[in-house]
């Protein structure tokens, strides 16, 4: 939507205001992007260059750093673990989240409000407080140190339920009722009517949770010990301290970090349009 309005401030004031905005946003942008850029340039430096604060850009780009991460390290394996575990988890979270949000928004039952209260209440709980009970449950189910345990313990996302609920509330109830009259079950109404109309919320949900699961460190490192089950963050740490190389292979660690981020960047590039929409509270219903 373009809102055209007449700006009747004088020219110098307008120029100043634009400059001000550019300055503020530019500074914030640089601050945000700087660590990332630093990581990228560092990944191409030699061991000597990397600790020398006088040089920012690598004098002699070490492409071999990247190659050794991709071909001669366990990092690709961790990326693969992270990617598919996150994919499964996000898939499950979308299904459970959409079903619960649908019930909260479109079904009439007495405990509806109470249920929403409880769900939101658990959101207030610090995540760390759930570690011990979750750990004990997984131990009882003999699911520690396994992908199954990682997945099972993350099948529900409260944030996702909330996000979808907000999106669903934008949909006129009459549409779901019309679908029901047309012969659709709740399940079909959810996926064929509600979901396509709230695509932006689903994509935002999927992407944000994919990123956080992909990068998750604390919980996976509590329940997995064997390196074959490591996700990227754990993997990076293990790689960092491998063979007692504590803080000596900075360039390689930076290269590994850079490689790890690539899948997320690709994903973001594809979903960016929807992502921004979803965060802005748009539901994509517009004609």
């Amino acid at each position, binding site marked *: 939507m373009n809102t055209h309005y007449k700006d009747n401030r004088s020219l110098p004031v307008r120029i100043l205001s634009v400059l001000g905005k550019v300055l503020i946003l530019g500074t914030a942008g640089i601050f945000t992007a700087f660590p990332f850029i630093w990581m990228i340039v560092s990944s191409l430096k030699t061991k000597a260059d990397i600790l020398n604060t006088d040089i920012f850009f690598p004098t002699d780009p070490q492409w071999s750093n990247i190659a050794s991460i991709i071909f001669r390290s366990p990092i690709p394996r961790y990326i693969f673990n992270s990617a598919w575990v996150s994919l499964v988890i996000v898939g499950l979270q979308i299904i459970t989240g959409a079903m619960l949000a649908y019930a909260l928004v479109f079904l009439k039952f007495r405990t509806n409000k109470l249920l929403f209260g409880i769900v939101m209440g658990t959101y207030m709980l610090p995540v760390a407080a759930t570690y011990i009970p979750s750990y004990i449950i997984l131990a009882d189910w003999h699911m520690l140190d396994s992908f199954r345990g990682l997945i099972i313990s993350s099948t529900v996302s409260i944030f996702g339920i909330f996000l979808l609920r907000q999106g669903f509330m934008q949909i006129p109830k009459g*549409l779901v*009722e*019309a*679908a029901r*009259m*047309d012969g659709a*079950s709740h399940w079909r109404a959810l996926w064929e009517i509600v979901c396509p109309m709230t695509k932006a919320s689903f994509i935002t949900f999927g992407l944000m949770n994919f990123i956080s699961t992909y990068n998750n460190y604390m919980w996976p490192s509590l329940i997995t010990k064997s390196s074959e089950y490591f996700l990227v963050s754990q993997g990076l740490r293990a790689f960092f301290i491998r063979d007692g190389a504590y803080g000596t292979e900075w360039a390689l660690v930076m290269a590994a970090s850079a490689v790890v981020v690539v899948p997320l960047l690709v994903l973001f590039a594809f979903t960016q349009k929807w992502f921004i929409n979803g965060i802005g509270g748009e539901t994509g*219903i517009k*004609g």
Partner: protein
Amino acid sequence: MAEIILNNITKEYDNGFQAVKNINLEIKDNEFVILVGPSGCGKSTTLRMIAGLEDISDGDLFLDGKRINDVPPQERDIAMVFQNYALYPHMTVYQNIAYSLKIKKVPKDEIDRRVRETAASLGLTELLDRKPGQLSGGQKQRVAMGRAIIRHPKAFLMDEPLSNLDAKLRGQMRVEIADLYQRLNTTFIYVTHDQTEAMTLGTKIVVMKDGEIQQIDNPTNLFNYPVNKFVAGFIGTPTMNFFDAECVEEDGKLCLKTLDGKIELTPEKEQKLKEDGWTGRKVTAGIRPEHLEFCTEEQAAFKGEISVFELLGSNAIIYAQCADGRVVMNTNDTVSREHGETVFMKPREEKLHIFDPETERIITN
């Protein structure tokens, strides 16, 4: 093809409000039933219970002899047209119309044939590839109808389907719905608060007020034999004139005394009033504007000055200020009249309705 029976149906919302109170209604196969009444009287609630979109608090709902209180809407095989059309915005007109058949797993080529047939019958062929956002109100309305008729459902439910259209389009769609009913030969249940729509479309009209059914009848009977003051006032435009009158006996004959004069009674009405012991008591009388006629000063039941004169072409509406308040007359006498002119009017005796002033029930029509 469906027979629908509502047996002592009650709806109480979660907040304890009784929107529908113990109603009984029998809808025969192929009937065009209209639920009509003022806003908030429970029409939509009743329709939605039949649809299955609202739980029934008490009573039994039968469809073709089977109790369906607990059957979910998608298994009732009833189609519904919503007031705001409720078209799926992300689907084309084609997909909107085809959706119910797709759910029923009808073969693709049959779906295609039926969609095109339905679209043609509603003049939608050109619009099949459009999304609902690109349609006018009238076109959306047609798509909503198409979505309902393609299924050949057991019954059609329509909740004020024309209320979002402008007056002209509404008249046109009304004719189309009547035509559709003739062609489809199915049960229709139609909700409206517009009594003209009700009178022109329905074969059976259910007048509701405050969650209760007031009267169930065909348009003619509803117009001529209302069971109470509410129905009498609700049906017909302009509305019926109501006034207080006293039953007095003069020379052994009963007549009604108004503030301006008196009204003779037909022998049947006289007898009924006498039998029920109304002699010497006050009643509420009602006369429709079209059943008033001009008369001489001696005969007049109402004397008044014209406050508004509306010439509508073949007839004229006269609003006169009388001792009994404002009296409205609808006459074929289209001689132009001046504001402030004095008129004398009397009811046609056989068209007079007399109500009990306390219960507001009819005493005699």
